[in-house]
């Protein structure tokens, strides 16, 4: 398929985390920079109770609200002698962190599960955010796009980070929610498509 080419709501947007059987080494992570390299890590979806294997990934489901995705700006005003207005330059941005609001399903984040053990483990993972206006056949990247996430128009963003915290927000009348905080330790790569 291709990038989304029309206005629309990202009803089926998705956050996923690559969980290979062996955690990626810093050298392997540093070598990642192309769409094919990132997409290869998201070949087979597993559930939180599943078993990690080669190129497996897990989706963070029941997301209630996504934050802004991308590096925040840091515009610095620079005084210019003799000019009525200052000039602006792009400064170095603060490292962003991402907080995702979930409708909390405890079984997905139980101790011993793939997602549950990921919280605060200090391991760097590769994250994928896919902007999707339509529901794909499946969420995996594979050599036959029509049978995976490439079955619908999609735009994908990748980064490296850690799952730092999970905070549960009990609700007495609404559904229980949780806030997952992720740190970001690389640039954003994308937008890619397949």
């Amino acid at each position, binding site marked *: 398929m291709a990038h989304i080419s029309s*206005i*629309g*709501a990202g*009803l089926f947007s998705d956050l996923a985390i690559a969980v290979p059987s062996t955690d990626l080494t810093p050298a392997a992570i540093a070598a990642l920079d192309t769409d094919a390299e990132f997409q290869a890590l998201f070949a087979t979806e597993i559930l939180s109770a599943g078993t990690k294997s080669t190129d497996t990934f897990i989706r963070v489901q029941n997301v209630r609200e996504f934050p802004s995705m991308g590096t925040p700006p840091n515009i610095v005003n620079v005084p210019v002698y003799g000019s009525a207005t200052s000039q602006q330059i792009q400064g170095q941005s603060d490292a962003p962190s991402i907080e995702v609001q979930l409708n909390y399903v405890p079984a997905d984040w139980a101790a011993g599960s793939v997602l549950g053990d990921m919280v605060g483990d200090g391991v760097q993972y590769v994250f994928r955010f896919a902007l999707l206006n339509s*529901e794909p056949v499946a969420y995996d990247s594979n050599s036959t796009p029509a049978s995976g996430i490439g079955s619908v128009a999609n735009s994908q963003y990748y980064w490296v980070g850690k799952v730092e915290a999970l905070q549960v927000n009990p609700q007495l009348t609404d559904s229980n929610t949780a806030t997952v905080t992720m740190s970001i330790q690389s640039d954003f790569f994308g937008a890619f498509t397949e």
Partner: protein
Amino acid sequence: MSTDSKFVTLENQIFSVFATPEWVAEKISVHPASYINTSKDTSFCRLDIVSSGKGVNLKSVSGMLIIDIFTPFGVGPRAGSVIADKLDSYLVGKTIVGTQLMGSTCVPKGPDKANPSLLRSTYTIAFNHFGV
């Protein structure tokens, strides 16, 4: 900016769902609201497109699809729910070219006033039609 044929385009996109071979195979006809059904079908639907909401730009519009589901009175209310579930599988969360369909509801309305031998349920689903 031209806003030509926004409503006609929307109508064509919505009705295209009910012209697909998959829906035709369901054998539940869907008529426009003003259409008088002269067939002998005892289960059928009547579709009204209510474009009552604003869109994100002049070529866009939002609103509700209101689909009256008619089933034989003696069969019971579940027949209407079964058809509503079928409508869900074709509409909820789907994107039809530039029209996105959201969540749905289904409300039993009792015997039809025009034909008490039919039970009427009203299925509604919100839509956003995006024009570029």
